[in-house]
């Protein structure tokens, strides 16, 4: 019986966050994917408040919410694998946590809005909002990385994990919608960061294939458009 279980699959960027953290720590775990459209008994029992993935189950005790899970993983396995994920000093920890709030509260919803936009106008607005958010993160990256490869400096840090989980989705949406979201011209540092992040061994281990994410995105878009068409009739 595995001591560490994770409910979810890496197609979900929030699950991917926790998988990247576990991979960085080289912690073995059993992955328990959910069936699309169905929630397992275990999920409903482990996360009664939100009924959402990811849920980490450690020694039969559930931990929910991706940011909470990653902090938990960092605390329980402080020295394992690539070492600490959260920065060593309190001020940098506060900055990584602040930007994580921003990613979850503002950036991610604007990414979702791009995918859901029903008119060209709405899409353009959502794209501009998302790009504006990325430009803030570009600035933050320059300050936090201090010339190194990651938000965490030489090592992959908390904000790298919390933002990096969206990279494959950003790329998939760029492909399907024929747009540039992470513009190399206006966000050169972030562009470089994406390359470094994707190249990291621990990230490569768990990053889903771009093709799979593109397929999944196309599928949910088709489902949404069909539902909208059915509702209109």
């Amino acid at each position, binding site marked *: 019986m595995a001591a560490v279980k994770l409910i979810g699959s890496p197609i979900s960027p929030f699950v991917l966050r926790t998988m990247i953290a576990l991979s960085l720590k080289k912690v073995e775990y059993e992955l328990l994917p959910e069936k699309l459209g169905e929630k397992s008994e275990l999920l409903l029992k482990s996360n009664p408040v939100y009924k959402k993935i990811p849920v980490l189950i*450690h020694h039969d005790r559930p931990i929910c919410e991706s940011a909470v899970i990653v902090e938990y993983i960092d*605390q329980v396995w402080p020295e394992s694998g690539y070492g600490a994920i959260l920065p060593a000093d309190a001020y940098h*920890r506060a900055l990584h946590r*602040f930007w994580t709030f921003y990613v979850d509260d503002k950036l991610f919803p604007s990414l979702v809005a791009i995918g859901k936009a029903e008119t060209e106008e709405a899409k353009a607005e959502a794209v501009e909002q998302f790009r504006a958010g990325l430009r803030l993160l570009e600035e933050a990256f320059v300050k936090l990385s201090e010339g190194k490869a990651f938000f965490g400096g030489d090592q992959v840090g908390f904000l790298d994990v919390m933002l990096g989980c969206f990279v494959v989705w950003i790329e998939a949406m760029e492909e399907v919608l024929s747009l540039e979201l992470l513009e190399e011209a206006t966000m050169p540092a972030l562009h470089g960061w994406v390359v470094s992040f994707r190249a990291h061994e621990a990230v490569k281990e768990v990053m889903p294939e771009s093709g799979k994410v593109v397929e999944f995105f196309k599928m949910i878009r088709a489902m949404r458009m069909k539902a909208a068409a059915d509702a209109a009739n």
Partner: protein
Amino acid sequence: MPQTASLHLTNRLHIHIVLESESERERERGARMAEAVVLLDVWVSPFGQRCRIALAEKGVAYEYKEEDLANKSPLLLQANPVHKKIPVLIHDGKPVCESLVIVQYIDEVWSDGAPILPADPYARAQARFWGDFVDKKIYDCGIRLWKLKGEAHQEAKKEFIEILKVLEAELGDRKYFGGDAFGYVDIALVPFFAWFYTYETCGGFSVEAEAPKLVAWGKRCMERESVSQTLYDPLKVYEFVCSLKKKYGIE
């Protein structure tokens, strides 16, 4: 009630200094220490109050700066350029934003005071989870209780009561959310205790009827100086919301 409570919202600096002795040198040292920690805030903000409670629990001297949100100070705009919102804690010139990030920062920097987050990783994860729940749910649903009408209002009322019941169930028969020790979740939630009167009056329900343990918990928290010195009278909060309603033209 905070000793320097004033409904005249000016940009005067209110300096809270914990005096150890009457000597001039002690007072000067206290003043220097207080300058190193500045809190940009607004009197009624439950988010700002989280920070004030945490600072008080740790016995940290700081300078409180009341912001006028209709006329934000250059300091606020510089300290929180992303959101331009309070609270902001400025420690040795470095700004920290987001109330729960600030509370964690306070806990980590002034680590010799009583811990706000528990040491045990699982207990800490539970505390973070519930702090996040309070953050995601109470304020936004609460606003809908006094801003909306008709069906949307009924929807908000249903949701809010559900949120109270979830918190009631989580608290159970414990003294605090953290167990025996007042901690992170208590700090995250307790400022809203002063808003219960507003929520139930605008919502048309009774918090005590829906969540009696939660009300008892709030009263227990008010026995702590850090809380009673920070929270305003529920009637003052209600007055404030009524003035907001007038401003937005809501009946």
